[in-house]
């Protein structure tokens, strides 16, 4: 049970990612694929954020700081959660929304051209 609970976040992220992945490769509807892609990327973000957590850690903003220097040694590292994965994930989120935007633009054009967003129908029209 400890084994299960200790990594619960990881199990959930795997489950979520697989849901997204399945939607991406198995669904015929192009919009559904994009929804799957969003879920997929969000799962990765969940994974990264989970890396950064520390039990008993607080948000990564220095407490009680104005604009004055603080001696590096006086800061307790274990008190703050790891900021690096958060930084990486900001990038990933932004990338995700960019790809979504482009993909939706493509979907609109595909709909205008083929009058459907179902992949099998498009393939039937192409062949």
């Amino acid at each position, binding site marked *: 049970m400890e084994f299960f609970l200790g990594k619960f976040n990881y199990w959930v992220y795997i489950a*979520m990612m697989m*849901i997204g992945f399945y939607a991406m490769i198995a669904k015929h509807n192009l*919009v*559904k694929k994009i*929804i799957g892609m*969003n879920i997929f990327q969000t799962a990765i*973000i969940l994974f990264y954020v989970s890396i950064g957590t520390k039990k008993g850690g607080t*948000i990564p903003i220095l407490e009680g700081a104005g604009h004055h220097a603080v001696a590096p040694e006086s800061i307790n590292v274990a008190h703050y959660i790891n900021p690096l994965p958060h930084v990486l*994930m900001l990038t990933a989120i932004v990338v*995700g929304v960019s790809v979504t935007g482009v993909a939706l633009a493509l979907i609109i054009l595909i709909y205008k051209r083929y009058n459907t967003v179902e992949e099998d129908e498009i393939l039937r029209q192409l062949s």
Partner: protein
Amino acid sequence: MIWPLDFILLIIILILSVAAITVRDLLSAAIILGGFSFMMALLWTEMGAVDVAITEASVGAGVSTVFFVAALHHTNRRSKD
């Protein structure tokens, strides 16, 4: 970090993600995806990743959903699967 809240949120998120890909109405799916992102943002606030949470709330739940709706405006909102 509050463990029970964490678990509940994760379960809700799983349910929402399954819902988002199974619902046949694409508009509903997009809205569910927005809800999913919002729950995600909550989860991350709860985990201490405030910057990610803000971004996810504004991007995932906000702009992304708007994009979906805008795209669905031009296409078909019904899906076969």
